[in-house]
């Protein structure tokens, strides 16, 4: 990744985004995006863990989970194509909890040095 602009452009390859541009991602770009995701997951692991823990016992500590969920939905509404059925699923309060938990779990399992390979395997296996 030569600069941040390249990453910003690559984000638009996501068909769920409003600003979707039909670009075929190259293999090295795909690998680089995975690498960036793993590095961020490692850095953010304490927060990811806190969010997961908050969801485990909502009666005791629901603030973190609710804040995260609210922000997640806000970002989706702001940047994603809300006419898409997949995006509607992400916004549906009754369905999105499960999706978010699985996403956070996937990230939390990939923070080791081999995390890059693990995440790649997970993505190719979905």
């Amino acid at each position, binding site marked *: 990744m030569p600069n941040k602009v390249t990453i910003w452009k690559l984000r638009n390859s996501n068909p769920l985004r409003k600003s979707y541009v039909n670009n075929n991602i190259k293999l090295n770009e795909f690998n680089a995006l995975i690498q960036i995701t793993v590095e961020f997951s490692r850095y953010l692991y304490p927060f990811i863990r806190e969010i997961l823990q908050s969801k485990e016992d909502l009666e005791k500590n629901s603030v973190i989970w609710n804040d995260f969920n609210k922000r997640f939905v806000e970002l989706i509404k702001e940047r994603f194509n809300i006419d898409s059925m997949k995006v509607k699923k992400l916004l549906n309060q009754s369905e999105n909890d499960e999706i978010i*938990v*699985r996403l956070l779990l996937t990230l939390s399992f990939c923070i080791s040095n081999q995390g890059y390979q693990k995440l790649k395997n997970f993505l190719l296996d979905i």
Partner: protein
Amino acid sequence: MMQNKLSFHQSSVSLEIIGLPDFSNNENNDQISIISQWKLTIIDKPLIEGKIEHLLPIMDAFYIYSNLLIKNEIPSYESKLIDIKAENLHIHTIVLKSSKPNIKPLILKIGNSLLSDTINCFDQLNESSKVKIKKTSAYNEAPKKSKLGINNKVKLFDFIMPPFIAICSLILLSSTFIYFYNPVEVKEKNELLNPN
């Protein structure tokens, strides 16, 4: 002889490995190749400990279970030593069965946060250069789809080969009839039989 101890920590979980280096392989004093004991400490839960023959199946169970959990499949794992089942998406029940008779199984309930801590401790152990351990089959498991790709090639080969062989044999067989059947000769014979 003093045994080596190595610990791997991740938030609320720590894994301790106790053992000796394999001096016959000229290993350093601080290495562990012969694991005599291991201890898995999860905060607020009973201590889990055992020998090397228990560690690998337990690691396997955790890796397989976590893969099932992510892949949206029914997260359930059962073996002689350990069962892991999901109570819901957030709580997981672990049943550790003792190999000794008349000992009740140990039942633990852990959340997603402790599950990911445990997996990360096992990852650290797998990646450690100081502990030589056989990699579990489920660690860094290659995606099924790539395996399927290879299978598809085999299937395609199986699919194409029988008709290909059939056509080849038909051509070979029919070409031999050229030697037995001469149309001019047959015509002459017919003329002799029916002179009119």
